[in-house]
């Protein structure tokens, strides 16, 4: 998995590409989000536009990161989900948990 990190105002945008699967991206995802939260970010946007595959470990890390952010009073939102990643979140009803956006501008604005 590869990542690119930038800020849009006070929103930390983490863009990921490749796979978020067990042993190949799941731990990195956790570390990236934790580092952002530790650094004081309270608005984190995960751009999954470049993700080609995700498994239950990757989904688990996203859920754990969501909870971790929430417990710190921060927000974690998702943008640019492919149809397949959207389907994976749909079938486990996680789509009801995450705030999901189709484009970055809309997502950034939603943080307020």
């Amino acid at each position: 998995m590869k990542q690119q990190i930038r800020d849009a105002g006070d929103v930390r945008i983490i863009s990921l590409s490749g796979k978020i699967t067990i042993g190949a991206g799941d731990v990195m995802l956790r570390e990236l989000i934790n580092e952002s939260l530790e650094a004081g970010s309270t608005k984190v946007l995960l751009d999954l536009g470049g993700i080609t595959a995700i498994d239950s470990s990757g989904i688990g890390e996203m859920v754990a990161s969501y909870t971790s952010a929430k417990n710190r009073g921060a927000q974690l939102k998702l943008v640019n989900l492919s149809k397949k990643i959207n389907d994976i979140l749909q079938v486990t009803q996680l789509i009801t948990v995450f705030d999901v956006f189709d484009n970055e501008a809309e997502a950034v604005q939603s943080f307020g």
Partner: protein
Amino acid sequence: MWATLSLESRFESTEIAERALVDLFGEAGVGGDEEYWILTALREAIANAIRHGHYGRPEESVRVDYRIKADRVSITVVDQGNGFDPAVIPDPRDAENLLKPCGRGIFYMRRFMDEVAFRRGPGGGTMVCMNRKLTPRSIKE
């Protein structure tokens, strides 16, 4: 069309198992969404064998059998662990499980394959047998 792999119990082995199935699918003319979801189920079965069957013990091995016959793909993943009772796996969609970081792998396997059965393996571990009907356009025997 068939293949058998004996893999080290390391997460990197998942990639090898995926590539082997992609190669078989390439020969059989299977691709697209169908390939994607079957690979997702395969990944989950192997991850379970490594993480829950062997608890990360790399000296154990994971055996994977693939068979593509007529309009069906069958995949068997066998570990050397202690086995488990699939009946006690909770539904990850239940409200009390929704925010748990684990417990979705078997759900995805069942969702993306037509049949998933858990049996006792020949060496005492878990044998996961999965199969799925393939779309007629894609079959090359």
